[in-house]
């Protein structure tokens, strides 16, 4: 009999989410920001998969309803890949243009 | 000892340990053999005698090399990144070693018959990429850095056509499980996927006498050259992914000293070496699994069945024999190629991948999908290779698959 339940997974996810948010808020390097975002996305994915694993409604679900969480996480992963590609391309362009990827220094649009 | 372990972990972990330890031993032995083979074959091809001093005919030369390596001082460059430099070789080795979890050595020996086995191998091989990158970067040396970047670019590029070819086989097999794919190829070499798989040739009455062919199934014969090509592509992609000649640009000694492992010495260098050989074997084992029938013998029955022995042990041993023999032959070809072909240029490398292999891979997947949809015989998969061909129906005993059961 295992003691691990849904809240355990949610806790891990919460901690990862908080770490990601901390990274996003405190870092100045654009690549580091992206890493923080990936952590946040991973946390969300853990939640998706965890909720698809545990039955919180109390009624039996069909297979396809059960898989909704996993499907969502797969699409999140796919879109994360898109996001990373585009973001890195933008970062490279910024580097070419400004010779830095420090987000505080790339502020030409600020008044 | 056994009881102690059971007490300690609260569960019988001995099978796990065995399953984990066997590939490790295998890698060590294989590396010794492969190094020896490389030395001797290069000598043969260059009309030399090769190592002759250590042991009879120099058979102990690899052992001597290893001992020499172990004795050397482990040097870490002053400006190298301290932790990453240490971790990198192990990461590379872990990536190669993890793949052994799903390599089906015989009908009864596979560490974990995952239902995403093929996918899993492709995934864990990306850890190797990171490890190589880490090694190249952490050494803080321009040659290692270039080697690392080249290696990563090359491995990632060649993963794509390789993946397409694998996808074609997976589509035909309808499963991602390694054992599942092998089990479909039983009953003779014409059922191997290198010849188009169980549904291509076997459905033709002029070969097997069975008549489950659908109208127009002669189109299936077109699969044979296609899958031969696919095998070739996979094998070449495998060469590129292991950074072997003619794709050894990351280690090109004339340009980059020794690529990403320039700064490594002693045991860490040995571990890189080991990982490279393990990787070679993994690539060849996958090729054998996907295209060459895995542990099946080339003839309809296992030899031990012709001899009358039908026990699990004999079948398992013969499966092991066939699997390792096939893999060794492929490894041998890799070694021969190393001493035969010159190195490619970078642009040739990329041209080959993106402009030749990738379109061919696309076409392959589309043709196979069309074939599955329109041509392949509809009967359920159980009737695949012809009913009376006596493939051994193998069911692994539970102890060999400790992770499979909950």
């Amino acid at each position, binding site marked *: 009999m295992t003691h691990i339940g849904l809240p355990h997974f949610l806790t891990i996810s919460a901690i990862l989410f908080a770490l990601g948010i901390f990274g996003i*808020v*405190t870092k100045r390097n654009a690549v580091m920001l992206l890493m923080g975002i990936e952590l946040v996305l991973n946390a969300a994915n853990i939640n998706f998969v965890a909720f698809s694993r545990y039955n919180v*409604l109390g009624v039996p679900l069909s297979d396809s309803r059960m898989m909704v969480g996993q499907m969502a996480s797969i699409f999140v992963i796919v879109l994360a890949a898109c996001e990373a590609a585009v973001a890195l391309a933008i970062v490279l362009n910024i580097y070419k243009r400004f010779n830095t990827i420090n*987000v505080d220094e790339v*502020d030409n*649009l*600020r008044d | 000892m056994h009881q102690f372990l059971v007490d300690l972990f609260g569960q019988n972990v001995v099978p796990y340990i065995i399953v984990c330890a066997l590939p490790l031993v295998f890698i060590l032995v294989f590396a010794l053999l492969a190094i020896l083979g490389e030395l001797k074959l290069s000598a043969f091809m260059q009309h030399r005698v090769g190592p002759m001093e250590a042991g009879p005919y120099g058979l102990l030369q690899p052992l001597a090399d290893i001992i020499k390596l172990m004795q050397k001082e482990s040097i870490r460059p002053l400006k190298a990144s301290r932790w990453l430099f240490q971790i990198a070789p192990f990461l590379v080795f872990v990536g190669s070693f993890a793949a052994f979890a799903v390599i089906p050595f015989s009908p009864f020996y596979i560490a974990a018959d995952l239902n995403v086995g093929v996918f899993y191998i492709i995934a864990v091989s990306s850890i190797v990429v990171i490890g190589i990158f880490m090694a190249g970067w952490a050494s803080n040396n321009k040659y290692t850095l270039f080697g690392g970047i080249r290696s990563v670019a090359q491995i990632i590029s060649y993963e794509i056509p390789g993946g397409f070819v694998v996808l074609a086989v997976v589509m035909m097999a309808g499963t991602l499980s390694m054992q599942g794919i092998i089990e479909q190829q039983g009953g003779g070499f014409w059922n191997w996927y290198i010849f188009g798989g169980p549904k291509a040739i076997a459905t033709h009455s002029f070969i097997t006498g069975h008549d489950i062919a659908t109208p127009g199934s002669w189109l299936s014969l077109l699969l044979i050259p296609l899958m031969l090509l696919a095998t070739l592509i996979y094998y070449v992609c495998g060469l590129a992914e292991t950074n072997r000649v003619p794709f050894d640009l990351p280690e090109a000694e004339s340009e980059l000293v020794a690529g990403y492992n320039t700064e490594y010495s002693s045991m860490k260098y040995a571990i890189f070496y080991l990982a490279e050989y393990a990787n070679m074997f993994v690539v060849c084992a996958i090729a054998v699994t996907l295209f060459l029938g895995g542990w099946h013998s080339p003839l309809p029955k296992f030899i031990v069945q012709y001899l009358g022995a039908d026990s699990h042990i004999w079948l398992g041993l013969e499966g092991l024999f066939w699997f390792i023999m096939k893999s060794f032959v492929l490894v041998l070809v890799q070694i021969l190629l190393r001493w035969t072909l010159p190195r490619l240029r970078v642009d040739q490398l990329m041209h080959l991948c993106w402009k030749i292999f990738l379109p061919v891979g696309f076409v392959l997947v589309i043709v196979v999908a069309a074939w599955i949809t329109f041509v392949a015989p509809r009967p359920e998969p159980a009737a695949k290779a012809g009913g009376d061909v006596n493939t051994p129906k193998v069911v692994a005993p539970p102890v060999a698959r400790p992770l499979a059961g909950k």
Partner: protein
Amino acid sequence: MDIRLTLSLVILVLPLFGFAVQLILGKMKTPADYVVDPHENPAHDHGHHANTADAHTADHTQPAADAPHDAIGTVTHDIHTAHSDHHYDFVVTKQRGEWTPADQKRAYSLSWISTAIMGICLALALFVAYKTISDPGDATKPNYYPKVQASTTWMDFKDLSTSSIKQSYTVTLGILADNMAAIMLVVVTLISFLVHLFSSEYMREPSMHGGRFNRFYAFLGLFTFSMLGIVIANNLLMIYIFWELVGLSSYLLIGFWYERPAPQYANKKAFIVNRVGDIGMFTGIMILYTQLGTLELTKVFDMLAAGHIPFGSNPWLTAAGILLFCGAIGKSAQFPLNVWLPDAMEGPTPVSALIHAATMVAAGVYLTARIFPLLTGDAMLFVAAIGAATAIIAASIALVQTDLKKVLAFSTVSQLGYMVLALGVGAFSAGIFHLVTHAMFKACLFLGSGSVIHQMHHSLHHLHDHDRDPQDMRNMGGLRKKMPVTYLTMLIATLAISGIPLFSGYMSKDEILAGAWAFRNISPTFIANAVWIIGYTVAGMTAFYMFRMIFLTFWGEPKASDIYEHIHENPRVMVAPLIVLAILSLWIPFGANPLNPGGGWFLSTWVKTPINVTPAAVQPFAGMAHEVPHEAAPEAKPEGGKAEAMAPFQETIEHEVHHLHSTGIPGVASLPALLSLLVAGSGILLAFLLFGRAGAKGQQVSWEAPRGIRAFLFNRWYQDNLYEKIFPVGLTLLLMKMLAWFDQNVIDGIVNGVGSSTVLLARVTAGFDTYVVDGLVNLLGGTAQFLGLVMRQIQTGRIQTYVVYVILGVVVLFFAFR
């Protein structure tokens, strides 16, 4: 899936494919390689240019054509940029030896892929339209149901719904096929195809495309994709998504010549003004979604018909309708937001034809038609009023414009006002009909103007004249002898837009006017009367200014004979679209009898007014006791008890229109048509007297700075100035003045008071001065600084700070409402 839907999807995706092909394979240049420079013009290797090159080499000390320019050269080019601003439609670029004739050839041949794709789309669209229109449809369903539609659930929030909200929330994606969508498919793909064809010649020279020939085609493909998405979407979310995509592609195309400041300004303006409308549209969507839980149009209508009114109150429903219509106000350049469309003419002329005349701006009308069943009586009155206001304002401005494209631009705004007016008065099919006919003749007019401008440009280019404006009608005149095909096609389109019988505009416009008349008859309110009068007034004004344009451009004596000499007819690939569109501007594609507007098959069979699903109390004409005619066959009744309550509206208006038509001789022009013919005829006559007659005054007038009413009209009723005064200048300045007053009187007063008392007290005791007063002042400063510091942290422009606020907001909201 139904074949029509499948083909619709194919039609949708093909232009996107064209977009990708052009982007990936096309040869692109970076902006740095191209510098605006009309004077130091290296030989583009046009044949005729080479002759005069010798004469100019001495003046310009120009380096060899293919030598790369140095950095100093680039700087001087930037100075010339300002000089070339007034040079209206064209960018003359200088290349650094990269865009070779081989590149040109490659880009040119590559563009045919996109054109071919549009041809395929057109063929498929025709097939889809044939299949759809020939399908009788399901008579048991309410008539706002499309012939076929398919949806898939994207998100289902059923499990998240709490006890306070009963219904489920879903987000679906889906497409539909009905007659309106099918006709729009044909219109969009047809115009897009012709514009692709036209552009292949129009944009051919490097001086026109600035090295971005394929990017132009890519953007055209992107636009077509987005527009088709709006057409076939069956839910508000997808319409909204493609709505924004259309906005984006319009932005890209308006600013295609982004080297010059004017297009940069114009595309920003278009984008920002559209956002204002889109906020309204989004709010409308959200009102419906929060209350109904679905965005699929048929479901929304079903729920409304079943009595699920937003917040249970009719004013909210009216508000939702008006807010959704706000999107149309922005996109179709209706009255308060009509300022962007004329500026959008900064884009290349084919773009103006495709986007800003024929398709995108009609998307607002299309949206209004899609949401038509949920408009209450008040909302429709609002729509009609907006349409009428737009029509009269734009038409009056068009009377005095001197720029060829500006006349057409204001005419477009005015005609869009007509369409919106038609929807507002309930003449649904007339509005859609006018949308289609207008797309044809206005695209013809724009492409024709493009043809004229192209030749003008060539001529000016040949003369090395960079001061005169190729779009100004004051430089034209007498062109019909030089460009007969362009003249004839534009004349046909002009007759069509003026509403002359035998042309398409007559049929659609008169139907609108009849609708307005019927509206006025049924509910004789002030607004209805005004709408009716404005409708007829604008008809006359349209005829006047369009013929003024024809007379000034094509008739009379050439006003600049040096330009005139070098003008000749354009090549076939440019005039062929004109001919096609001119043929489509005749009456024959739309109805058999050219004199009977109501009898065309478009109106009688293809597009039906959808039933209104609003509650009976707020339906149009709810208060008007107009008897329902017995002969009107009540078809397509919706199920449920609402059927009786919903029937009257469209039958009332159709009956009244029928009644108006039947007063004349059967099958021939009726009373509204006769009146409109009279008005249009007098407009044409006036234009002829003022501008067309040999020796007419208008022909010789060289306009100086306009005064009086003409200045008022020429400056667009000072609407732009007003907005500029109100929003950026007025409000901000007012705020600044208030703050300055506060600063000078309050803060300065305090400081001065403190200062003087300090002086006083300093004489008494220095210690007090040192410790107390200085302390006070420092405290004040410190507090201000601290406050400033705190307030500045709130908006840093860094996304990370905003993340902090978002998270804190979530936490606070959670604990506040747990």
